């Protein structure tokens, strides 16, 4: 995949006034256009500061950030922010305005005409699953946490920004709803192809969401930038190794889908009693199925049809992990 750089950090550092150590240390990083980037690390590692420097909520102490060829310090901060979507953990919907009005915030600032705003708001609220007919006239206090953050995402997308900054957006949401929101964001991203910077301290979330992951350590240094598979297969430092934790092999299996592997043809006579698995399943699910059923192989079927596509064995899974730097599930999607 071609990766034209959209945002470029060039020797960017930030030390807060009065602080003895840097909040972000000499960072150089090129963010490719249209990819989902997760910034991950422990508290105080500079991931949030890094993100907030992109829309100038925080100004770097030194270095430059270049957006599509233009140094952002030369762009008026307010107009820069209106071009960049922003979603935060606290959601921050305006409690005195209706849901409709909240989503319309940036288009109104940009002076869109009323009809265009109304259509856009309806489109977005439908897109995030908070239909305008039912929720448009309610106030934020009348929504659940999950619904509020869906509206938060719709508000950030309202003026169709190319870049979306998300600061632990699902951090305060219950685990079941969080998984739903993660899946829906990934679904949206497959259609939108925004450039997303997504801050999280949860490595599993970072792996699940990111096409590329930037790992920061406690010294506020970027220690590794790569695909989830790269990072799991070859952690750059001992810190990354410890941060990604145990079970990296199992993690890597979650990143790939059965349909991405070359399958062996099913034998003519068929494989009696072998369990069946749809091609959209992850390798992790395939392994689980093999272990659970004590079968020697699985029959892989097309989604929504019993038609066998081929068979998969334990050795195929092992081979898949040995081939480093193969495309990830996200790339193939």
């Amino acid at each position, binding site marked *: 995949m071609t990766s034209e750089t959209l945002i470029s950090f060039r020797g960017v550092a930030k030390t807060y006034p009065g602080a003895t150590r840097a909040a972000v240390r000499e960072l150089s990083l090129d963010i490719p256009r249209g990819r989902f980037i997760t910034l991950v690390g422990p508290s105080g590692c500079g991931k949030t500061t890094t993100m907030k420097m992109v*829309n100038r*909520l925080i100004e770097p102490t030194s270095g430059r950030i270049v957006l599509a060829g233009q140094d952002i310090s030369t762009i008026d901060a*307010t*107009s*820069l*922010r*209106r071009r960049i979507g*922003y979603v*935060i*953990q*606290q*959601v*921050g*919907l*305006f*409690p*005195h305005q*209706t849901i409709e009005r909240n989503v319309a*915030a*940036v288009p109104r*600032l940009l002076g869109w005409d009323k009809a265009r705003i109304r259509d856009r708001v309806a489109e977005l609220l439908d897109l995030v699953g908070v239909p305008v007919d039912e929720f448009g006239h309610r*106030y934020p*206090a*009348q929504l659940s946490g999950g619904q509020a953050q869906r509206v*938060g995402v719709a*508000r*950030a997308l309202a003026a169709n920004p190319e870049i979306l*900054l998300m600061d632990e957006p699902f951090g305060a949401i219950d685990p079941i709803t969080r998984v739903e929101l993660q899946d829906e964001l990934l679904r949206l991203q497959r259609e939108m192809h925004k450039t997303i910077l997504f801050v999280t301290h949860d490595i599993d979330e970072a792996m699940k969401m990111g096409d590329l992951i930037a790992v920061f350590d406690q010294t506020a240094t970027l220690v590794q930038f790569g695909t989830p598979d790269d990072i799991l297969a070859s952690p750059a430092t001992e810190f990354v190794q410890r941060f990604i934790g145990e079970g990296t092999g199992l993690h890597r299996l979650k990143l790939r889908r059965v349909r991405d592997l070359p399958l062996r043809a099913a034998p003519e006579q068929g494989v009696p009693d072998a369990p069946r698995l749809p091609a959209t399943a992850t390798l992790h699910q395939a392994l689980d199925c093999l272990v659970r059923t004590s079968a020697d192989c699985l029959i892989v079927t097309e989604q929504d049809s019993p038609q066998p596509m081929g068979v998969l064995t334990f050795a195929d899974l092992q081979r898949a992990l040995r081939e480093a730097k193969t495309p990830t599930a996200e790339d193939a999607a």
Partner: protein
Amino acid sequence: MSFWGFLIDRWDDFLVLGLEHLAVVGTSLALASILGVGLSMLVYNRSVPRALALAIVSVIFTIPSFALLVLFISPLGLGPVNVIAALTLYGMLPIMQNAVVGLRGADPGVLEAARGLGLTRMQQFWKVRVPLAWPVMLTGLRVAALMLIGIATLGYTVLGPGYGEFVFTGLYRVGTPVALNLVLAGLLGVLLVGLLSELLFTLLRRLTTPRSS
């Protein structure tokens, strides 16, 4: 004469004094709101000016109202202007205290979102911070109104308008049959004005703040 008979007999006076009472309190409340809220907006985010401003209005608040009215006789003379000046100063404390708390108490997450979405500083203040502080400010105005309705009665000592006239005339004629009726009529009037004020503020709150659930 019974109290009700007295009231019917003096009904015209009762109405006129009521309107006067409303006018003097309304004017003072409006002035105190403009000054108090305006000053709060200037000082809410600066610790030294904020502490200083609140200290000054608190000290003023501790001056006995009777003394303040008498003190204002030499610059402002007798009559409504004197009373309005005193009431305005008394109204400042509850109004400023609430306005400062409201402005400072705005949800940081909402303010951060406003900044991140690209609202200018002015827009962040007028479109987010002030509306968020509004319910708390309104409570300050409501408390101030009740307080001023009570204090305004004392205004009659410097020949100010309102129900003070009934109360103080009653006081001067203690021992005569009409004294009790006069005082009761004054109290009833003040009570009614207070109820009206509560009603208006409840209505205003309903109309200007979204239901929370």
